């Protein structure tokens, strides 16, 4: 999936670059449902996946990786996740 608003989240703001492919990610609710690398937010998940907020609340956990990323004027990050 494509993460949203990458340029305005803490990972890009702190490093000035997008995370490289294979960077490990988790999913958390920080206002929006977001993908997190370490402690920094990489991007928001599409709001069609808002139901993950209730799954997280129920105790489900999700891990994933960056599958592709590109910088420039419109930084973009693709990610894949699995439950467990």
């Amino acid at each position, binding site marked *: 999936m494509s993460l949203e608003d990458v340029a305005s989240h803490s990972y890009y703001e702190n490093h000035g670059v997008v995370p490289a492919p294979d960077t490990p990610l988790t999913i958390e609710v920080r*206002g929006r449902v977001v993908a997190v690398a370490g402690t920094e937010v990489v991007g928001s998940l599409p709001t069609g996946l*808002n*139901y993950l*907020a209730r799954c997280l*609340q129920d105790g489900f956990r999700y891990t994933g990786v960056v599958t592709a990323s590109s910088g420039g004027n419109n930084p973009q990050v693709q990610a894949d996740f699995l439950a467990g």
Partner: protein
Amino acid sequence: MPETFPILIGEVTVDFTMPTRTADAKVRLGGVVHAARGLWASGQVYSVGAFCPAYLVEQARSYLIQHGCKEFVLLGVVTGSPNVIAIADAKEVGHQGYEDILRDERQIIPSCDHIDLDRFDPIVIFPGRYDLDGVIKQIRPGARVTIDAAYDMENIDYFLSLKGMIDSLVISTSSSLFSKLASRDVSPLLDLARSVGAKQLLLKENRGGSRLFDLGSGDIEYITATLNVTANSVGVGDVFTAVFGTLEGDSRDAAWRGMQAATVYSQTTWPDDLRRDIEREFQMSVEVVRGLGGSTLPWHSRPNLQIYLAAPDFSYANYGEISTAVAALEYHNFRVRRPVKENGEANRDAPIESLSTYYFSDIQLLRECAAVFAIPINRDPGTLVEIGLAIEMGKPVVTFDPRNENRNTMVVRGSSSYSPDLDVCLNGTFDALSKIERGSRG
């Protein structure tokens, strides 16, 4: 004071969703039963005041009692019509194409028995062909009354006669009253709601979310829509209204809970799944839900975010997919700019040097639009070039590929949304334009 319970008042129908090439037919109890399912799944005890054809009474009573209904009150019997609604488009991609069979023959005979509605509060009314006055006269003075003006409420003078009796007015952008009064400007609707003494107006704007107007303070709460795969949109608005109208406490919170229940209702037609998912939804606090984000694209903002139609929209080609997509976008109040219709169409053997005028005019139109809706049927080269130009301009491109002809890396990844399914592309359009609109609102 004796304990009171919520009651839902409306007609019971049979909703028959017609089969399509990809989906089986679906038959279920509809009308006020949609609202009842929503309350049952939300864990609420409620009653139903029903207007129902005689052949459905026992079935409806039994079904509702099994789904949380404390008391089934037969307010009247429908004659002359089976109260069967045939539904062509269950996802409301465009106009739903409701066929209310034998609607002009319908008569409603009020129940002969005196019915005491004094013990019910709050009250949620879904108007129909029945005598609304007769119902309202039986309501306990001071009861909290919510009216969903979806159907049979076009008469504004009649509305005004209800002054002082309505707490909340709920209306959808697909209702005839909205079309008549407020399709261009919401102010006349707000004025009407104030005139009848309503405290709030909830405007349900389909995939663009909802707005809750506090008519006292003037505050507006923007309720997001969560766009996902729609299983069936029939009755979704009724569930929203029922939860909003019956929850105790803050009306803003009730509107958010209504949205959550309605969203789940749109995603399944199986009652047990509905109940499980709504229970899980309601475990999140309203503040968490408010922070999750979603689509907010008010009806009246949509025409300002013009959409460029990139498609082989030529007079000599008659592609049904293009007209269906344009009709769906216009149904949702988007302004679709059609370059071929607006700037003219070059003759197929016109000299090359004569094409510049069309090219520059189309490029200018593309620059003026907020987004592109592309339908690259037959891999039309002009459409594919327009997709590329829009991507480079930073405009969102929604690509509807009904014939699966363009599963190309640059087309798929360059588009903010790509699908052969118009429903998905419509969601993509709302999502993309919602982000632009939110950015302009600050």
